[in-house]
């Protein structure tokens, strides 16, 4: 039975390691996915049939998963090469876990390779601590008789306390694991795990394992650590660097953090990584100007009182003069009533004054600020919504008390809050995306989608701010709006992802992967 299992696991991951012909790695067609270098076993992969076009396939691994997979791979290769596991581990790490290349090169030039990684061929007997006569340690200059000493095959012998001190310093202070070399001068021999076991205390071994696991994930292209603080999970995703202009691979870690597998920044769908980089750089350069022009406050268009926005919704009512206006366009709110929301769109000015260079630069700054303001607004509002989310729990329990609703029945608030967060994150990036879009029919459709989502979000956000006693009555309405928001988001993301994949977007800058 055991050998059968071995055979199977060996077989399937062999298939996986051939990654050179997986061209796109795009998740749509499953035929491609099968050839992507996943690195983990095929049977562990989940294929969700209803996957949206903007979603990618991925899997989250715990440190234990990674450890056991690592061990399994080492065992496999160890049998093929006929080398003990600790030697195989060094070789695999040396080749950055590219099994095929390791086996090929090993078969071609075994001695050369072993020499390269500081292991030569005669590996006889386990490493052991010895005492030598007339020995003086070159590190501490101690020469008392009976001193315990250690040397690897290279023969560079030092006393055990010095060796231990050296290793613990490398592991603890310098965070090295896979490539710790012999302390001898110009010696390239790598300290193998058996020698390490002999010399290093238990608490350090844990750290050592942790570091080894870390280099494993760092070495593999299909694995990335979740960037959330204190998160221990790694995500496995087949999307390659070269695909990043065609796909935005957002993954969801088990810790709850959504991030882009391509650049490990927080989820930035629908904008591709290259665009995000450009935008963030631009915001960094221009942010002072932008800040200067649109500081944190605005004035009431009627009475000029200074107003700071402290809630998520754009419908502003001036405390002093009761004037109602839109925070975005500063226009009268009642005008938004029928034509509702037209202020997501930047009205391109006619080309008549384009000849005037000054006007042009002013216009381009204005254009940038238009998008930046909306981008920043959603970022800000998402933060405010998050504050509200924290208050939501309190609201939920209040609602349970005041209206006699059960815990299950007040869950709609949490759902709504989550939808708001997610939609705002998406909306935020639609403005960065739109800033770089060249104008054509696609853009119109995009802006319509953007407008619809914007509207849905604003509606929901406004509802969210209502006092607790009104919330119970709004439940059905709120549920509807939540669903609607999510639906609009899916539509927008699917549309942009499809076009991105088909290369149909025209950008006004060149994006390079």
């Amino acid at each position, binding site marked *: 039975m055991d050998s059968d299992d071995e055979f199977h696991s060996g077989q399937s991951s062999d298939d996986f390691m051939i990654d050179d012909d997986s061209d796109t790695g795009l998740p749509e067609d499953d035929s491609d996915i099968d050839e992507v270098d996943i690195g983990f076993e095929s049977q562990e992969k989940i294929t969700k049939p209803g996957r949206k076009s903007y979603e990618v396939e991925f899997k989250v691994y715990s440190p234990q998963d990674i450890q056991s997979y690592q061990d399994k791979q080492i065992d496999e290769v160890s049998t093929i090469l006929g080398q003990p596991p600790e030697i195989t581990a060094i070789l695999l790490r040396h080749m950055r876990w590219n099994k095929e290349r390791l086996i090929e090169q090993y078969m071609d030039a075994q001695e050369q390779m072993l020499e390269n990684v500081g292991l030569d061929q005669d590996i006889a007997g386990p490493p052991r601590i010895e005492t030598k006569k007339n020995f003086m340690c070159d*590190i*501490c*200059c101690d020469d008392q008789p009976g001193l315990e000493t250690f040397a690897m095959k290279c023969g560079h012998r030092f006393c055990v306390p010095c060796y231990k*001190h050296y290793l613990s310093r490398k592991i603890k202070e*310098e965070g090295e694991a896979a490539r710790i070399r012999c302390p*001898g001068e*110009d010696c390239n021999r790598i300290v193998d795990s058996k020698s390490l076991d002999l010399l290093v205390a238990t608490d350090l071994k844990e750290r050592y394992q942790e570091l080894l696991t870390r280099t494993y994930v760092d070495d593999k292209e299909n694995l990335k650590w979740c960037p959330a603080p204190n998160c221990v999970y790694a995500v496995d995703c087949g999307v390659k660097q070269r695909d990043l202009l065609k796909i935005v691979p957002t993954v969801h870690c088990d810790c709850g953090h959504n991030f882009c597998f391509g650049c490990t920044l927080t989820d930035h769908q629908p904008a591709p990584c290259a665009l995000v980089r450009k935008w963030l750089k631009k915001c960094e350069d221009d942010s002072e100007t932008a800040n200067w022009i649109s500081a944190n406050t605005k004035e009431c268009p009627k009475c000029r009182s200074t107003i700071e926005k402290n809630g998520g919704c754009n419908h502003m009512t001036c405390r002093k003069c009761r004037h109602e206006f839109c925070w975005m366009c500063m226009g009268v709110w009642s005008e938004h009533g029928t034509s509702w929301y037209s202020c997501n769109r930047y009205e391109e000015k006619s080309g008549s004054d384009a000849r005037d260079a000054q006007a042009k630069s002013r216009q381009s700054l204005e254009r940038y600020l238009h998008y930046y303001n909306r981008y920043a607004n959603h970022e800000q509002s998402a933060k405010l919504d998050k504050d509200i989310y924290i208050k939501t729990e309190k609201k939920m329990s209040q609602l349970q008390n005041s209206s006699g609703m059960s815990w299950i029945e007040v869950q709609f608030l949490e759902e709504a809050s989550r939808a708001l967060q997610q939609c705002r994150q998406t909306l935020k990036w639609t403005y960065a995306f739109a800033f770089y879009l060249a104008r054509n029919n696609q853009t119109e459709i995009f802006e319509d989608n953007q407008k619809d989502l914007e509207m849905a979000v604003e509606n929901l956000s406004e509802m969210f701010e209502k006092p607790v006693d009104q919330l119970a009555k709004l439940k059905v309405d709120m549920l509807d709006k939540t669903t609607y928001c999510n639906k609009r988001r899916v539509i927008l993301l699917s549309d942009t992802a499809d076009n991105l994949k088909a290369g149909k977007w025209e950008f006004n800058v060149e994006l390079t992967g």
Partner: protein
Amino acid sequence: MSATRRLQKELLKLQEHLPPGISLVQADNFETWLMDIKVLDDNPLYRGDTYRLKFHFSSSYPIEAPEVTFITSPTTPKIPMHPHVYSNGIICLDLLDRQGWSPVHNVESVCMSLQSMLTGNEKNERPPGDADFVKSNRRRPRDISFYFHDEKV
């Protein structure tokens, strides 16, 4: 401390015998030593000059590399001209970096390496970006990761 014992032994050895062109200036504690080096051949860049080196040892010496910089003094007014030596005395040498350091190295071998680094040099220049680095650097040498781009010099 192992550092103290090791330095004691090194000091004994240095007091007994020193390679040509290297002299011990001050070693009255086990934290900071001063050494002088001279370039022995007729290299016009360094002819007739003596340069002072300051060694700073941490308690982890020799597991950890010592901090070595050129300093000026009334008798040694110059920092040697070299594309790996900044004008504030900071030295960019892989031997003194984590990756290049081995606990088997010692004060004598570091001095000799620096001596030969100077001997082999023909360029009368500072590292690129010297002025900016010297102006802005507040870090200690060991916290700087140098990029050893040129193994020849």
